[in-house]
């Protein structure tokens, strides 16, 4: 029973970390239909920025706030100065973008390694969160509960922006009918770049949040990309709520299979993906009719 409860918490914590990555990709890939394999690069960038800031200021909290800034700027610039002009020239098929962003993913890893070397880095767990919390008769690391909290906060915040604000409405309109929104006087290119930057910043945030838990190294973003795509596809393209639920399903599947069926752990998430693709190709929470 104790194992089961701990695994629920572990699963939740993993889900929220995956969600931070997946929700950004949902905005970029699902909503704006930009195939972005470089999403892992923003994860790496965020983590390294966090390491640098934490080392310079000695504060985890300033790393948490400022770490996602560089990923935002890079994401914003990438969309506005590279991807958008390419799209205008008709060079934005999935294959074009896959090649470009896949190259970016590896170039980032190489650049980080050139700057920082191949050593492993970490951000120390902040003192405030380094203890344990007693919960339902078990003792659980406070920092992992904090990750769950961050994930939920981001989910609620994004949901609010997307559903209840003018920016959200404009974005949804822009995705559906770009020409019309432009005709209404909205600079859609800048808006898309901001959203791309936001997605990148969330991946960067995930990088900082993961840094006290995992080791930070140049290739860390490469492994994570595939799992993130699984979540986005299972959740249904472009569906924020879908990516939340899909993160929960994927995170829980992973945590539970690890504890109770370790033989299938590596396979479980992909089996889930295959199952979803056969039964509901639009994703568990996707609308019918959109094809990526």
């Amino acid at each position, binding site marked *: 029973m*104790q*194992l089961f409860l*701990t*695994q629920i918490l*572990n699963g939740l*914590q*993993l889900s929220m970390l995956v969600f931070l990555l997946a929700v950004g990709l949902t905005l970029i890939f699902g909503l704006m239909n930009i195939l972005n394999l470089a999403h892992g690069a923003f994860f790496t960038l965020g983590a390294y920025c966090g390491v640098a800031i934490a080392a310079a200021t000695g504060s985890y909290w300033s790393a948490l706030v400022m770490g996602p800034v560089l990923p935002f700027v890079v994401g914003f610039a990438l969309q506005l100065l590279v991807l958008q002009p390419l799209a205008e020239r008709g060079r934005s098929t999935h294959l074009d973008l896959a090649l470009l962003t896949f190259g970016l993913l590896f170039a980032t*890893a190489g650049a980080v*390694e050139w700057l920082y*070397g*191949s*050593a*492993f*880095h*970490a951000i*120390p*767990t902040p003192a405030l969160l380094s203890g*344990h919390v007693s919960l339902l008769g078990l*003792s659980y*690391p406070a*920092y*992992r509960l904090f990750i769950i909290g961050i994930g939920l906060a981001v989910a609620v915040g994004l949901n609010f922006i997307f559903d209840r604000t003018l920016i959200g409405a404009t974005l949804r309109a822009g995705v559906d009918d770009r020409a019309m929104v432009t005709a209404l006087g909205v600079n859609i290119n800048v808006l898309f770049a901001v959203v791309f930057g936001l997605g990148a910043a969330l991946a960067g945030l995930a990088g900082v949040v*993961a840094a*006290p*838990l*995992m*080791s*930070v*190294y*140049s*290739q*860390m973003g490469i*492994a994570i990309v595939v799992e993130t795509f699984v979540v986005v596809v299972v959740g249904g393209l472009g569906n924020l709520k879908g990516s939340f639920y899909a993160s929960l399903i994927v995170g829980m599947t992973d*945590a539970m299979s*690890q*504890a109770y069926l*370790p033989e299938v*752990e*590596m396979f479980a998430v992909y089996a889930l993906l295959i199952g979803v693709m056969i039964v509901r190709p639009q994703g568990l929470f996707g609308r019918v009719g959109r094809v990526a």
Partner: protein
Amino acid sequence: MAYMSRLSAALAVVVVASASSICAEEIAPLKIGLMLPYKGVYAVPSEGIDRGFQVAIAEYGGKVAGRRIEIIRADDELTPNVGVQQFNRLVQLEKVDLVAGVVSSSVGIAVSGLADKAQMPLVLANTFADEITAKFCSPYVARTSFSANGFLYNSGKYWASHGIRTAVIMGPDYSAGHSFLGAFKRGFEDGGGKVVQEIWTPFQKTKDWAAALTQASNSGAQIIYSFYAGAEAVQVVKQHADFGLRDKLPLVGDHWVYDKLNWGALGELMVGPKFVTTYLPTVKTEANEKLVARYRQMFKQDPEVNAELGYDNGKAIMLTLEKLGGRMPADKSQFMTTMRGLVFDAPRGKIRFNASNSALLEKVYVVQFAKDAAGEPVPQYVDEFAGADDLPGCTKSF
């Protein structure tokens, strides 16, 4: 007439001398392919091995019997099929005389099959899986480190005789993980202990050890005995501490779990736990002091376990080449026969080879890290015991 003959003799000397100097220049450098996983989870240990290897070559001024040594590096990406490609590239395109390095046992098993077919000397630096010099042994493959059984069988016995009765073993689910922890388990249970649970995590895929650690803490064992290296070691040690298990269920392991090169990422977490290691940088032997001095001069830091293994790898190759006069014999198995006959003092202790080309381990140290005045980690001697023999299993004769 006498004058003439003296003159012609002198001339002959000049001609021979100049011809031999031309010859020396014309002999192409001897090429060594050095294959390591330079990127990814084992990047840091690989850098140490590479540096140790360079020190061994530099000790000879980069030459053996007047012939220059050229190192050609290849990245096997810790993946057997990439290792196979890189091995073929080194042999067919770069035309190397021998291949050295290799960390992962899986890659080691894959390329030793190729070396055997191509009759190409392969001198492995790490690849500790027992079967490499047993079931998969080859007259063209040698290992300068040691086998998993050589290192951890007696470690298992050591902990069993030092108050530990029950243990959980936890490690990456690939050949080296199974070899190391298997060796520990045999020694531990032969010594009267009991392994109550085995936890295997997917190699290179696992980021979160929460589930594994939760299971371990529910097992009721006294310790977790584990083998992890590189990025995985950092994560395991950190998360083990996060779950508050350091006192309740200590994480015991070897010099890769508590790798000095991970000091930057782990810091204080490395101070305290006891672990087993094959190399103690503070040992006062001539071989070790030579390595330490040159390593400091070249890299402005002290060597550690991985660097020492890289050094042994390079040193064994250089000693063999020296005996062969700097030439690779036409029958390349002679290179291996010569290497197998070597006995030399390495920084870790005396190295000799068994009948299937596997270097043996003279002793294993038990150490723990303490901080010196400058705040740098220094391994402190606690105890030592002898290394065990390799497991049998090589059926080829060579």
